[in-house]
């Protein structure tokens, strides 16, 4: 019988994997960014699972603090990624990474 914490953690691992797959498999930048967000969520889920101290004990507060910090970081990352993606589309006209131009210093 798998404990709920482990189940939770496995769910996190699954999310992480799905996010990673999206990041790798889809050329569209937006999808990649979304994939990264899903990966992050997976990581946070695992952290939260680590906070479980048994059904009758209060959960460990430390992972929660970490997750909150992590979410802040993740928001920043998403913001940076989106703005870059916008610039790329503006400059190259494509929402994905085209091959590099040769001969540009």
């Amino acid at each position: 019988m798998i404990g709920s914490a482990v189940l939770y953690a496995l769910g996190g691992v699954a999310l992480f994997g799905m996010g990673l797959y999206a990041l790798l498999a889809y050329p569209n930048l937006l999808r990649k960014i979304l994939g990264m967000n899903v990966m992050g969520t997976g990581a946070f889920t695992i952290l939260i699972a680590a906070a479980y101290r048994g059904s009758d004990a209060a959960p460990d507060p430390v992972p929660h603090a970490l997750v909150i910090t992590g979410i802040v970081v993740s928001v920043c990352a998403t913001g940076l990624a989106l703005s870059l993606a916008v610039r790329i589309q503006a400059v190259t006209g494509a929402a994905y990474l085209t091959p590099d131009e040769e001969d540009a210093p």
Partner: protein
Amino acid sequence: MTTVLPLIIVVPILAAVGAFVLPRWSFPVALVGSLATVGLAVALAIEATATGAVRHTIGGWRAPLGIDLVLDGLALVMVLLTALIGLAITLYGRGYFGRAAPETEKGRQAVYFWALWMFLWAALNALFLSGDVFNLYVTLELLGFSAVALTALADKPNVLKAAMRYLIVSLSGSLMYLTGVAFLYGGFGVLDIAQLSSLTRETPALAVAAALMTAGLAMKTALFPLHFWLPPAHANAAAPVSALLSALVVKGSFYILLRLWLEVLYPLAGTFVPQVISLLGVGAIVWGSLQAIRQTRLKLLIAYSTVAQLGYLFVLIPILALERDNTLVLGGVICFVLAHASAKAAAFLSAGNILQALNDDKLSKLDGLMRALPLTVTAFGLAGLSLVALPPSGGFVAKWLMLDVAISRGYWGLTVVIVGGGLLAAVYVMRVMGRLFKQAAQPEVLSALKPVPRVMEFSAFGLALLAIGLGFAGVYVLRLLEIGARAVAGGG
């Protein structure tokens, strides 16, 4: 004096904010910030040599929720390195961005550069001083963001794409690291490195953490074959940014990896994992050098050289994990970090000068530049010397120590690789130097060069001298590394 420790992070942050808020004053603010940070680094060095390792708890909040800053020899060396190279880059940046008004495109770039650069410096210092694995994650991300943003400064397609690729790699690497942190916490219930160090055993949690963190950090450090993102990013960024990325930023993630294997993951030293890392390092040396040799652009060549040189950092991991107390082994790796950082920064800055003068960095266009830009070319030559590890240079001392370790333990394959890597480096360095020494086919090109500000030439040259001078500083580096070598790991 313990207040100095947080200051070394706070001051550059303040400078970053100042540079952003006061766009007309961004350079003076950054300069003051740089000088202050260098001063603080020196002060820290003096303090640490006198009193030993320093541990500071910010705001009195204890671990696990509080933030502990730990300064041991290793951290100190890295902080000092950052200070030295940082100062040179600040000076170089002045020449590179000039006095353009903030309203112009170039001026806007300059403001962003100064702010982001100061921020990056703060992130680096914070990273080196972090005492727990989660704070390391945060600083890693901050470092990544500022690095990506700096890369993307120039608004050109190749640059933006390289930055995006860099960002994706950086984020996914950090996330893998974060997941590893989660497993560590789940497995051992602490985040403080010193505490972890005394708790870790070979458990599944440690194994999973090791797998995630090693892979994630290896990618962020561009370990072969996960180096694919580095050459375009480093080669396409603005010259001072290239130097920063190659010299310092990749060292940040490597620093974490090193700390982890020294103090957390060492129970796995008996498995084959460190050997795999080492083998990838070997792969990096060979692959990166071969790629560097076939490049036709100077900055790409230097970037691939970084890929190759980073490989050296990993080859001694198996021995390091086994002999954690041996400062000689660690010394070899750290001397290499120092040597590579200074040499590579000098090389990129020199390349920046050439690019500035020539508006091109094709190798075929470099003929005869020795006459036009003697100081820059000399700087590149000296940096190349250190990359090839010819004495007297920092690279030589580092390789000496590494070879000493390898040979005295009978690692003959490694010996061949280290030595052979030097020869390959000689090949790509000579491809450039040969051109620079050649008689120019069209002398008129040389007279049509754009002027290069003296400060740019001199800061490149200064870094090159540093790369050479490190050849005489081996003893001192090792002495610094001795500071708190065990005290930190054992305390808590």
